[in-house]
Structure formats: structure tokens, C-alpha cells
């Protein structure tokens, strides 16, 4: 169990040894106050340690959801225990802040495909990862850095990252990036994404920010089997959200495209995409039939009144989704 202990005095090196001898592993220590965090199988041993004044079990907090997530009802997933346990999500992006301990413990594996190291210099991958983590806090992340410090991604790095995700048994891949080109789902990257999906890796890809022009979805969002995500804004489709060409039923669905953290705001289908990735991870942790889950997510969307090539099935609707799943 994890314990917070109040000490009578500052702890020295020898005190630390005393703790370790009694099987207590020090997790947290600060020079600012005489409080430590530790892990032990038997908290009673702490009563035998002379410099420990008092102790109690570390409590569980609740996640303070971002306003964007509250609006779409992500908290309802947690209320019914959908937290993403046992699901591996590959986040192919600009890496993460290595100093972020909150993220570090969710990372099962990481690999740098840029030659720069894993550190997120943009920053982008960190925000995407934290967003997914707040929706599916018990999921595990595979962090593939494929975007360099200038925010650019080389196409081969996308292939490498996707293959790495497959080899390491990711259930889901999040791609908040794209290649703007004329493609009807038949470019080499889109073909490869379709093959990956056929082999059990679900790829969630941003639609792009080149709207409202028709046929402006980027690749691999054009891949037939990718789950392609457009952006909503104030309950309508965001003007910038890429649209499919006339006969294309893409994007597949919409999710909110803006996120405010304090005074910092980030906008784009980059943000919409991890909302769906996290939601799917939460659902996959309970429901084994992934195709059925994806179908249910689409079926339960709120129709915003646009065509299929603009909104797909509509806007993510968590309360309706939970009703559909429990029927």
C-alpha cells in the first residue's frame, strides 16, 4: 500500500536505510516539508520507526476534467468503470515531455524515429498523450516520436511508427497529423493503413484542417479503414475541418476541436482525434468485439444536419453511446 507519513524531523540518509530495512520503499521526499510518500506491504512497521510522527494511506483523487471533455460527457465513461485498462495505444506524434511524471508511468514503450530523442520540442505529442490519458487513465501508451522539432513528419517515419505499433501489439494508433494530397484512399500510406486495420490495429486519424473545401481530407485520413475524425465547434462543424469529396463518407465522425488549458488554447482536428482514440480505448477495455464498438460509436452520434462527406455520422455523443452499448 502507498502511505503518506509526517516526520518529526528532516530525514537523513541513515533514516532512509532504516525505512528500507523495514521493507518501506521511499516514493516521495521534499526539502520543503517533513512529509514523505512510501510504499510498504505492512504499514504497522512504521510505528516502530522513531522519526515517524504519523501516517495515513495515500488517498485516490478524481480527475479534474477539462471543460471540453465535460461538455461531451467523458465523465460518464468513468462513472461506469470504462477506464481503458489493458488497452495499448500507440501515439505517433512529437514525443512527450520526459519530465512529466504523470505521463511517464503510463508509457509502456517508446521509440524515437527522428534521431532527435524522445523529448517533445513542439509541444504537441505531450498534449495529445495527456488528453488520451485523461479519458482512458488506465490504458498504456506506446510513444513513437515521428514528428521533429520543426513540427514536420517524414512519410517513411509514419510507416516505421505504424509497423512498430503493430509489432508491439497496439490496439489503437492515434495520428493527429496528415499529408495534404489528392487521394481517394489509394495512396501507398492509405493502403498500408487499411492492411494494418485488417490485421487488428485500429487507426484513428485526423481529417485535416483544410476545410471547408470538398476533397480536403489528408492522408492517412483518406484510408477507407481508418477512423477519420473531423472537428466541431460550438455544436457545429468547424469551418476549418476537412471535408470529403462528394461520394466519400468521410470523415467518419466529429469531436470537439479545441482545448483550453489555463490561458493556452489549441485548435484543430489534432484535438478531435485523441478524444475518439481515448473513448475507444475506454470502451475496448470492457467490450471485446471492437468492430461492434466502433459501429456503436458511429451509430450513436448526434446528427448535426450536414452531409456524410462533411460530418460523417455526426458528433460524438457519449450518453447515447452508453445507452446503445447497454441495450
Amino acid at each position, binding site marked *: 500500500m502507498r502511505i503518506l507519513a509526517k516526520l518529526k524531523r528532516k530525514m537523513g540518509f541513515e533514516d532512509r536505510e532504516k525505512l528500507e530495512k523495514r521493507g518501506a520503499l521511499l516514493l516521495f521526499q521534499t526539502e520543503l516539508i517533513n512529509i514523505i510518500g512510501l510504499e510498504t506491504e505492512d504499514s504497522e512497521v512504521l510505528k516502530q520507526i522513531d522519526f515517524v510522527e504519523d501516517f495515513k494511506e495515500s488517498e485516490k483523487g478524481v480527475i479534474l476534467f477539462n471543460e471540453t471533455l465535460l461538455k461531451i460527457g467523458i465523465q460518464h465513461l468513468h462513472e461506469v468503470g470504462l477506464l481503458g485498462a489493458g488497452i495499448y495505444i500507440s501515439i505517433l506524434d512529437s514525443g512527450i515531455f520526459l519530465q512529466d511524471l504523470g505521463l511517464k508511468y503510463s508509457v509502456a514503450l517508446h521509440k524515437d524515429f527522428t534521431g532527435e530523442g524522445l523529448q517533445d520540442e513542439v509541444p504537441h505529442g505531450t498534449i495529445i498523450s495527456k488528453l488520451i490519458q485523461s479519458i482512458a487513465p488506465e490504458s498504456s501508451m506506446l510513444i513513437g516520436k515521428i514528428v521533429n522539432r520543426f513540427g514536420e513528419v517524414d512519410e517513411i517515419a509514419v510507416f516505421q511508427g505504424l509497423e512498430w505499433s503493430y509489432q508491439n501489439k497496439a490496439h489503437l494508433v492515434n495520428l493527429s497529423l496528415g499529408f495534404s494530397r489528392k487521394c481517394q484512399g489509394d495512396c*501507398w500510406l492509405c493502403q498500408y493503413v487499411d492492411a494494418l486495420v485488417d490485421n487488428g490495429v485500429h487507426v484513428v486519424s485526423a481529417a485535416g484542417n483544410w476545410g471547408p473545401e470538398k476533397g480536403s481530407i489528408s492522408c492517412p485520413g483518406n484510408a477507407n479503414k481508418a477512423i477519420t475524425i473531423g472537428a466541431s465547434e460550438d455544436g457545429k462543424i468547424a469551418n476549418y475541418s476537412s471535408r470529403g469529396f462528394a461520394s466519400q463518407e468521410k470523415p467518419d465522425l466529429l469531436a470537439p476541436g479545441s482545448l483550453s488549458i489555463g490561458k493556452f488554447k489549441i*485548435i484543430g482536428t489534432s484535438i478531435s482525434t485523441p478524444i475518439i482514440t481515448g473513448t475507444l480505448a475506454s470502451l475496448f477495455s470492457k467490450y471485446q468485439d471492437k468492430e461492434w464498438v466502433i459501429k456503436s460509436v458511429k451509430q450513436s452520434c448526434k446528427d448535426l444536419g450536414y452531409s456524410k462527406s462533411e460530418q460523417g455520422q455526426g458528433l460524438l455523443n457519449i450518453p447515447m453511446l452508453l445507452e446503445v452499448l447497454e441495450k
Partner: protein
Amino acid sequence: MIRILAKIKDSQTVEKIKEYGNILFVSNFTDIVGVETTEEKLENIKHLEGVAQVRLSEKGILLKKAQHSI
């Protein structure tokens, strides 16, 4: 150095391409190979018997439209 994607006809072609560049990506799921090579050697790769098509690896971008302080 340049990065290219090559569509190949059979898996033996990978070995032939290795003579002219570093293989960056190869997969059982696709007949596309990622290669790092030079402008000069690119012509050799293009003319290999098992190579169907070659193009440069493109650059993509992150899909954040804006990121700013409010």
C-alpha cells in the same frame, strides 16, 4: 541524402536495393519499401528489375490549426 518510397514486385528486390541505399522500412503487409539513398544512386534503384515505382517520401504536418495564449 534523400528518402524515397519504392514499390517492389518481390521480396528479393529488397536485397538488390540494399546495394544502393539503407532500408528504413519494410513490412509483411505492403510491397512498399522506405529507403535512404543519394540522388546519384536513385537512378540505379529506379532501374532495378524488381522495382515497379519510386517516389520521394513526402513531408506531413501536425494538424493543429492554432495554438496560442488566450
